[in-house]
């Protein structure tokens, strides 16, 4: 690293983020920007029952800028590929795209530590990748193939990974689970924080308020993250919520409103949230205001409850990738060539994974009756004629 950007070496030495590989390989030094870091202002946070919020400015190194850009780009690309696979009828069932919301996940992940955990709803493709599942693992789960991270048995809504407690299909049902996962962190004393994500739609589910109460009652290290993309399925926030100040809806749980289109705001707020929760103060609500470009799911064109102009305007003025790109280029943290290089790399990676996710086989039919129970007391699974039963199989190793 020090060979590429000598001036950053010292800075990075103190950085807690481990750097396994340089973001791009060095060929000619002239391609790289001269500035090693820059300072950025953050749109003010709104606070609920908090005296002091996250920092209003942040320093970004050129290395981190490239890393963040790559993550943003790969998430967008995965969703574009998913949308196409769905239209080709290779992905069947239900498929919810994250395009437009990338800055939330990428910014949060950048501040998270390996010990922290995440649980979210069904808009989970990007999160799964950020939590360590390969692009192929994500895409081939969507196509229902054996290389999928849930062996193709979950599909688009049910992706899992290490410290990633899934994609969950029922609106709001993951919120109490998040409180439970946070309790486990506290009980084990491992210092981890759970990020429990839900949408503005799920914010009106009763379960969420049950989870708030338990989390505060027992001061659990749980950050309830409301990804407010403006629409709960086809109903806008104003038509579904008596209060759209989602950050304040935890009442006795303090909250922060964050500009979820700014990856740096998302990163700083998360850093703050981790500090808050690990100091034993209990849970926090974090509202990330963002936008989804696609419909709620692939069966929703997304145009019957909002105008095309509205979507276009967000794309042009608030897009999380474009705005970040402009920021880092104009501050000379990166050069356009570097970003092009990343774009090409991401395109190649996702294209290859897309191709493979179409050609991989599905798991064998015997897995129809696999892993229903830890230990199936009867050898067979009932349901059809007694002469032709299916045997219960233990696919994943039992411990």
């Amino acid at each position, binding site marked *: 690293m020090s060979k590429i950007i000598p001036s950053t070496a010292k800075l990075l030495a103190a950085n807690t983020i481990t750097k396994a590989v340089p973001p791009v390989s060095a060929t000619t030094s002239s391609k790289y920007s001269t500035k090693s870091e820059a300072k950025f202002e953050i749109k003010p946070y709104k606070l609920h029952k908090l005296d002091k919020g996250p920092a209003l400015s942040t320093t970004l190194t050129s290395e981190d800028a490239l890393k963040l850009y790559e993550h943003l780009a790969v998430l967008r690309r995965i969703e574009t590929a998913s949308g196409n696979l769905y239209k080709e009828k290779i992905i*069947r*069932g*239900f498929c919810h795209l994250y395009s437009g919301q990338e800055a939330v996940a990428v910014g949060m992940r950048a501040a998270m530590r390996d010990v922290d955990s995440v649980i979210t709803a069904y808009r989970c493709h990007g999160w799964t990748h950020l939590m360590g599942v390969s692009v192929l693992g994500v895409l081939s789960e969507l196509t*229902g193939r054996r290389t999928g991270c849930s062996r*193709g*048995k*979950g*599909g688009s*809504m*049910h992706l899992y990974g290490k410290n990633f407690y899934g994609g969950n*299909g*029922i*609106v*709001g*049902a993951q919120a109490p689970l998040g409180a439970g996962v946070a309790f486990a962190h506290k009980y084990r004393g491992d210092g981890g924080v759970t990020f429990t994500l839900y949408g503005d*739609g*799920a914010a*009106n*589910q*009763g*379960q969420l308020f049950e989870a708030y109460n338990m989390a505060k009652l027992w001061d659990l290290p749980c950050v309830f993250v409301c990804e407010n993309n403006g629409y*709960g*399925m*086809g*109903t806008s926030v104003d*038509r*579904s*919520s008596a209060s759209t100040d989602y950050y304040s809806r935890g009442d006795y749980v303090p909250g922060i409103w964050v500009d979820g289109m700014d990856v740096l705001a998302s990163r700083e707020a998360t850093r703050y949230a981790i500090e808050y929760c690990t100091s034993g103060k209990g849970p926090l609500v974090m509202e990330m205001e963002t936008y989804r470009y696609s419909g709620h799911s692939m*069966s*929703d064109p997304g145009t*019957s*409850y909002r105008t095309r102009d509205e979507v276009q305007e967000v794309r042009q003025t608030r897009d999380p990738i474009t705005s970040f790109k402009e920021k880092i280029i104009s501050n000379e943290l990166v050069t356009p060539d570097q970003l092009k290089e990343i774009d090409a790399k991401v395109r190649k990676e996702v294209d290859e994974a897309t191709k493979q996710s179409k050609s991989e086989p*599905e*798991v064998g*039919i015997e*897995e*129809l*009756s696999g892993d*229903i129970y830890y230990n199936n007391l009867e050898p067979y*699974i*009932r*349901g*059809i*004629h007694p*002469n032709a039963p*299916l045997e219960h199989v233990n696919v994943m190793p039992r411990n």
Partner: protein
Amino acid sequence: MASLVTKKSVLFAKFVKNASNNSKRLSSHFIYFPDNEKPVQGETTKMNMMQAINNAMDITLKNDPTAVLFGEDVGFGGVFRCALGLQEKYGKDRVFNTPLCEQGIAGFGIGLATAGATAIAEIQFADYIFPAFDQLVNEAAKARYRSGGMFPCGALTVRAPSGAVGHGGLYHSQSPEAFFAHAPGLRVVVPRGPIAAKGLLLSCIRERDPCIFLEPKILYRSATEEVPVEDYTLPLGKAQVLREGDAATLIGWGTQVHVLLEVAQMAEEKLGIKCDVIDLQSILPWDEETVCNSVKKTGRCLISHEAPLTSGFGAELAATIQDECFLHLEAPISRVTGWDAPFPHVFEPFYLPDKWRCFHALSQLINY
């Protein structure tokens, strides 16, 4: 119908026919058998099941000034568009979106119905009805009983799309009828097509007990019939015999009725036998008389449903049939159902009790 199958009996040809008959969806597992008999005379219009349900709700909102329709996204018609155009026609105060909160929707509907309105609540998918399970089982079902008949919520109808759709996966495919059949006080109804859907839904709406109306979602667009335009109802608690025979009784509801109709046709061609095919329609209360009379006549009975075997509603039918028809039975009652597994995403075609499974079970039943 019989002529469809006479020549091409090889498997592949059937597969192609099956696929092309079902709006080009290769994973469809049944052929739709439209109703030819009209429950009432008069003008008819071609409607699919979505339009028939829309028509029933239109009639209700027009004639019943207390009727209100609500649910997630019903403002623009709901995800399956069953409420299409109704908000424009009857206003936002009568047809409206709710927040995403199924328990709230059910409880709100119970309150509304108790206060005297005709409440039609839509749960977007039957799979999402479980957060509302407490309200429906503990509140709606028991309201009349626990208030000594003073505060019933019978004007509540909860509509929910259910059943397999070809690619729904774990949370867009389930058939929860048996769960609700275990709650005295509720009525549970499943239509098999547009004509039945309109008549049964109007009955449910007017019925003085809370009703769970489960609409097989794959039929919304794939099932089309000539539906009477005028207002009509079909009796709740009554099954329909769709095809008559003496060799066996085949019982199903919803989409599965069409699978069984095809199985009966196959049995006639391949085994030279005729079967009674019964659409149960009402799951709770179910029509014991029609079912038992048929089984006493045929001596053999096959029950089929998409939901898993154990504690599926077929179990209840089988228990009553053996009790009522014991001395008439020539073979043990056969149940052909979904596996005792979660509804699988990639394995739907293997999970469903398709015509081949049913036919196999029927052959064994006949040769017992």
